[in-house]
């Protein structure tokens, strides 16, 4: 498995592209949510109490969504601004928000989708300005984010077509650009009447494209994608490097969770960074801002024993009690390591999950069934038993290739005669 923390500092690794990949990958989202659920469980918060929690390295807010779903209020800390923008809901788009086809899209995803459709429209009309069309759209959308939401609302994803534009998102600017780069036969890609005309010319099915006439259109189509404008009031975000300490007052939080973040602290990304010192500073300031008798749960992927030892020892030095809880220790894939840290007094560590049944409920595939063991056979080829049907057929084939005369192939080849005969 490749480790992103080897490639450079997190604030550079999680740029806009990477953040959007991260936040829209359903597999990542699923696994992260599961780990966050488990971390919350390990946190063992008192029931019926709305907690004020800390999400360390919250990223795009996947783990935070889980906290919100449990009814707690949280503060997220992360070093990547694009990730935080994702978490805060800036330029997050929903398709079919409360419906069955619910999907969360980043701006990049939306652009990609619209971009590919543009590509098709251009291709259908037989012109060659494909790349220009894409770039134009990207630039044009970036200039005016509000027109993007208009664009998406009027874009029917299932039929890959613009269905309505009201008001048209400033087409003049886009036209100008287009005229500069192409011949007069180039279709207008912006959703104006020209698109409609072009489509008709190209014998695309008769369209129900109507301009500035919302009433005649099915509203479900129009409202499939909504820009998120109602922010979630249960969270707050802070741009901060974990390694330079937590910026909070003493005794602030009722608990802290961190999903796949702490291993980033074990790497120095600049000459003035010392992982040991940064971890120490982090745990010390974290210990201070946690309330008494609360817990902090870190899920992480330790690279080797030294790494988990380093993290553990720094946490203990800062005053925490606790240790590692390893779920499914015997499985390569489902194995998850949680560092459970407790403030105030020695308590018993929660039990790790090992149960086979529990395993079945989790979404990860056990690798054992797919493994193929080869024993004692050269090259994995099965030896054919002499005199068997397969042997006869192989021999006949060989003889045919050599040009010798052979008997006809029949279904009776190689069969035993009955004793009576």
């Amino acid at each position, binding site marked *: 498995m490749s480790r992103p923390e080897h490639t450079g500092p997190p604030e550079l690794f999680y740029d806009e592209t990477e953040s959007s990949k991260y936040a829209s990958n359903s597999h990542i989202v699923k696994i992260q949510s599961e780990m966050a659920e488990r971390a919350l469980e390990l946190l063992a918060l008192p029931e019926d109490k709305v907690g*004020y929690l800390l999400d360390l390295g919250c990223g795009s807010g996947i783990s935070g969504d889980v906290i919100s779903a449990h009814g707690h209020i949280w503060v997220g800390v992360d070093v990547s601004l694009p990730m935080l923008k994702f978490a805060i809901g800036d330029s997050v788009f929903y398709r079919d928000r409360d419906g069955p086809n619910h999907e969360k899209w980043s701006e990049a995803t939306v652009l990609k989708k619209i971009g590919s459709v543009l590509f098709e429209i251009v291709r259908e009309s037989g012109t060659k300005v494909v790349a220009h069309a894409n770039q134009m759209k990207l630039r044009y959308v970036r200039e005016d984010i509000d027109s993007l939401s208009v664009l998406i609302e009027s874009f029917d994803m299932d039929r890959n077509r613009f269905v309505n534009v009201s008001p048209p998102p400033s087409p003049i600017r886009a036209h100008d650009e287009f005229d500069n780069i192409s011949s007069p036969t180039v279709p207008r890609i912006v959703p104006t009447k020209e698109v409609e005309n072009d489509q008709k010319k190209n014998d695309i099915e008769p369209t129900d494209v109507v301009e500035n006439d919302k009433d005649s259109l099915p509203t479900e189509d129009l409202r499939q994608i909504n820009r998120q404008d109602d922010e979630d009031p249960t969270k707050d*975000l*802070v*741009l901060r*490097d974990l390694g330079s*300490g937590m*910026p909070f007052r003493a005794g*602030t939080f009722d608990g802290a969770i961190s999903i796949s973040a702490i291993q980033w602290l074990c790497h120095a990304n*600049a000459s003035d960074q010392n992982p040991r010192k940064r971890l120490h500073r982090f745990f010390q300031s974290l210990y201070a801002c946690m309330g008494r008798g609360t817990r902090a749960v870190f899920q992480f992927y330790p690279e080797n024993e030294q790494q988990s030892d380093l993290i553990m020892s720094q946490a203990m030095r800062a005053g925490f009690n606790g240790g590692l809880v390893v779920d499914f220790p015997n499985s390569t894939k489902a194995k998850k390591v949680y560092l459970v840290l407790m403030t105030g007094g020695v308590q018993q560590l929660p039990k790790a999950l090992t149960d086979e049944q529990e395993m079945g409920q989790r979404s990860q595939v056990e690798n054992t069934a797919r493994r193929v063991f080869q024993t004692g056979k050269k090259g994995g080829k099965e030896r054919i038993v002499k005199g068997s049907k397969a042997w006869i057929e192989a021999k006949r084939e060989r003889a045919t290739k050599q040009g010798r005369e052979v008997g006809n192939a029949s279904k009776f080849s190689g069969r035993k005669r009955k004793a009576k005969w």
Partner: protein
Amino acid sequence: MKLLTHNFLSSRFLKNVTTGYPLKLTIEEKNVVEAEIDVNFLKNVMVKIDYAVLYEAAKSVGEDENLPSPNAIVDIDSLNEQQLKQLHRVLVCLDVVIGSLECPETGRIFPIRDGIPNLLVNEDEVS
């Protein structure tokens, strides 16, 4: 950034800063997000909050109306509905979109953009 978060933020991580609290808040743009009032949470969080700081912060946004005076000891149970509502509004609903935070001791300024306070510092600035 909510005033709730502001109430807990401190610049103690900076070199030679002893308390670093409260951070001076300047607000250029704010936003109000409606949310359901949760008295349980208010109760839980009011124990930890520095009410005088919250009151000052609310006052700077012009939201101190209906808030109980900072001199009185704030007991959630003694507040009337209007006061509770305002407290909830100030703590949870109000969002600072653009502004800045200033360390009271060193004067280091942390900008707030898009509702996210930027508390990044250089390695040589921290203790």
